C-alpha cells in the first residue's frame, strides 16, 4: 500500500523533472542541472557519511578522476563522452578498491583526514604527471557541443541513479549491516556482520558513482586542472548539503542540495558574501536543528518518506 504510493510519487516526480526542459527557461534548466549534480554527489556522500559511518573529506578524489578520465579519453583519444565517463567510474571504483586497504584501517576522524590526504596526494600526483600534461588547464572541448537540455538530462539521470542506488542498497542486507555497524561495530561483528566487506562494498559503489557524477559534472564545467578537479570545495558542498538537510536520511541530501544551489544562486548578486552566508547558515541550522532539517523533522514528527526501517510483519498466530 505504502510502497505503491511511494512509487506513484516517484513516477510523478520523475515525469515532472523530465518535462521541465521543454517548458523551462535556460536559466531554470541550468539551476536544476546544478541541483541534480549536487544532489547526486550528496546522496553518495551521505551513503558513506550518514549510513556507513565513513565521514569522508576526500570525495573530490573521484570527482577529479571522473573529470580527468572524461577529459583525457574524449579530448585526447576522441572517445565518446558517455563511454569516457563510464570508464572514469570504473577507474574510480578500482582506485577506491586499491586505496581501501590503507584507508580502511582508519576510522572516524582519521578516516576523514586520510581520505582528504589521498585526494591531496592525487592533486600533487596529477600536477606532476606528464600523461595529463602536469597541472595544465584543460578545456574539455568535446563537451562544448552539449546543450542545456542534454546536460540537464545527464544530471537528472545521475540524481535519480544515485538516489535509487542508496534507496535499494539500504534495503538489502548491506543496509541492515550498515546501521548495526554505525551503532556498535564490535557488537555487529560478534553478530556475524562482516564489517570490512560491508564497508568496502559501499565504498566502492560510492566511488563508482562519484566517478560517474564527476564526469557528468565536468560535462557542465568543461574545464579542468588538478587543483580544481581535486578541490576540497566539492566535498565542502556535499557536506554542507547533507548536514544541513539531515545526515543519515535519504531526504536530507535532496533538501540540502536544493537549498545549497538556491542560496548560491541568490548570493551571485552579493559577491564575496556567498561563503560568509553559507558559513553562517551552516552554524545557525546546526544550532537550531542539530540533526539537519529532515533529521529534526523526523525526530519531531516521525516524518520520513524514504525510510530504510524494517517493518514488523503481522503475526500469523494471534497472541494471547
Amino acid at each position, binding site marked *: 500500500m505504502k510502497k505503491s504510493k511511494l512509487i506513484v510519487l516517484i513516477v510523478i516526480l520523475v515525469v515532472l523533472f523530465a518535462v521541465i526542459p521543454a517548458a523551462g527557461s535556460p536559466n531554470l534548466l541550468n539551476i536544476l542541472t546544478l541541483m541534480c549534480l549536487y544532489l547526486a554527489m550528496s546522496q553518495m556522500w551521505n551513503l558513506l557519511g550518514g549510513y556507513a559511518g565513513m565521514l569522508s573529506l576526500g570525495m573530490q578524489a573521484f570527482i577529479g578522476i571522473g573529470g580527468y578520465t572524461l577529459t583525457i579519453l574524449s579530448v585526447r583519444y576522441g572517445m565518446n563522452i558517455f563511454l569516457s565517463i563510464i570508464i572514469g567510474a570504473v577507474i574510480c571504483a578500482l582506485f577506491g578498491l586499491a586505496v581501501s586497504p590503507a584507508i580502511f584501517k*582508519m576510522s572516524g576522524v582519521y578516516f576523514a583526514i586520510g581520505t582528504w590526504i589521498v585526494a591531496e*596526494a592525487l592533486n600533487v600526483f596529477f600536477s606532476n604527471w606528464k600523461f595529463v600534461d602536469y597541472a595544465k588547464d584543460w578545456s574539455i572541448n568535446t563537451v562544448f557541443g552539449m546543450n542545456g537540455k542534454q546536460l540537464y538530462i545527464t544530471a537528472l539521470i545521475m540524481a535519480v541513479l544515485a538516489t535509487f542506488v542508496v534507496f535499494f542498497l539500504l534495503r538489502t542486507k548491506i543496509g541492515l549491516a550498515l546501521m548495526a555497524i554505525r551503532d556498535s561495530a564490535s557488537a555487529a561483528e560478534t553478530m556475524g556482520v562482516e564489517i570490512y566487506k560491508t564497508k568496502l562494498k559501499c565504498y566502492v559503489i560510492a566511488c563508482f558513482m562519484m566517478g560517474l557524477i564527476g564526469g557528468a559534472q565536468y560535462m557542465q564545467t568543461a574545464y579542468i586542472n588538478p587543483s580544481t578537479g581535486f578541490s576540497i570545495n566539492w566535498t565542502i558542498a556535499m557536506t554542507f548539503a547533507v548536514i544541513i538537510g539531515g545526515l543519515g536520511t535519504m531526504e536530507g541530501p535532496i533538501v540540502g542540495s536544493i537549498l545549497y544551489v538556491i542560496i548560491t544562486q541568490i548570493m551571485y548578486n552579493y559577491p564575496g558574501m556567498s561563503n560568509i552566508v553559507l558559513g553562517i547558515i551552516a552554524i545557525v541550522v546546526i544550532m537550531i536543528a542539530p540533526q539537519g532539517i529532515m533529521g529534526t523533522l523526523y525526530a519531531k514528527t516521525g516524518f520520513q518518506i524514504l525510510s530504510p526501517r524494517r517493518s514488523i510483519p503481522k503475526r500469523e498466530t494471534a497472541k494471547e
Partner: protein
Amino acid sequence: MAQCIITGILLGGLYSMIGIGMSLVFGIMKLTNLAHGDLMILGTYITLVITRALGCNLIISTIISVIVMCILGFVIQQFLVNKVMDKGEAPALLVTFGLSIFLSNLMLKIFSADNQAINNSLSVKNVVSTENVSISASYLTSFIIAVVIIVGLTLVMQKTNFGRSIRATSDDPMAAELMGVNTKTAFAAAMVICMGITAVAGTLVGSTFTFYPSSGTQYLIIAFGVVVIGGMGSLFGTLIGGIVLGVAQLLGGFVFGSGVQMLIAYIVLLVIQALRPNGLFATSAMRK
C-alpha cells in the same frame, strides 16, 4: 642530504606548532576543528595588523594576538562549541566547518586578498651558513618554541591538578563534574590555551611564509597530517608527527624532486596510518 634532514626536522617544529592546537582540541573536546587553519591565519592577521598599526615589536604584537585569540577561543567555546558538543560528531564538525568558511571569507572582506608577510628579520637570516648547510633562523626559532610549548604543556597536563581536571573532563564530563570540576570552565580553559598556542603558531607561520586569507586550508591539512601521524590528542606525538612530515617532505623533495615533495609526505603519512591507524602515539584507547 644533511641540509634536507636538518631543515626537515626544523620545519617539523613549525608543523607541530600548527598541529598542537588541533590535537589538543581533539584530545580534550573530541572536536575535529575544521576551522583550525583559518583561526590560525586569523591570529596571523591580528599580529600583522597590530605590528603595522602600532608599529610595535613583534613579540608585543604576538602577545596581543594571543590575548585576542584566547578571548575568541572562549567566545567560540561558550557560544558555539558548547551548544553542539553533546549532539554528536557531525553537528560539531559542521559548526567548525561553517566557522571555517565564515572566517576565511570574512578575513577576505576585511584584509583583502593581498598576499602578506609579517615583517621580521628572522625569516631571511640564518644561524649557520656553511658550504653545505644553512639553518634558517625562523625555522630554528619555531622549532625551539614548539619544543618548549610541548614540554611545558605535557608537564601541565600530566603533573598538575589543572591538567588532570582537563583530561578527566575530556574522558567523562559527567564524572568530572561529580569530582567537583567545573567542566564548562575546563573546556573553556582548554580552548583558550589552544587558541593561544594557535596564535603563536600563526605568528610563526606568518613570519616564515607568505599568507593570504584563504591560506587556512593549506595549514589545516598540515595540522591534520601532523596530528594523525602523531596520534590525535598526544602532545609528544604532535612533535614527532611534525618532524616526520617535515623530513618526509624534504627528503622526498631531495630524492624525487621538489614537485612531488608533498606527495611523498602524504604517502608516508598514509603508510604510517595504515600501519598505526591511531597514529604513533595514540593516547586514548578505542572505545565502544
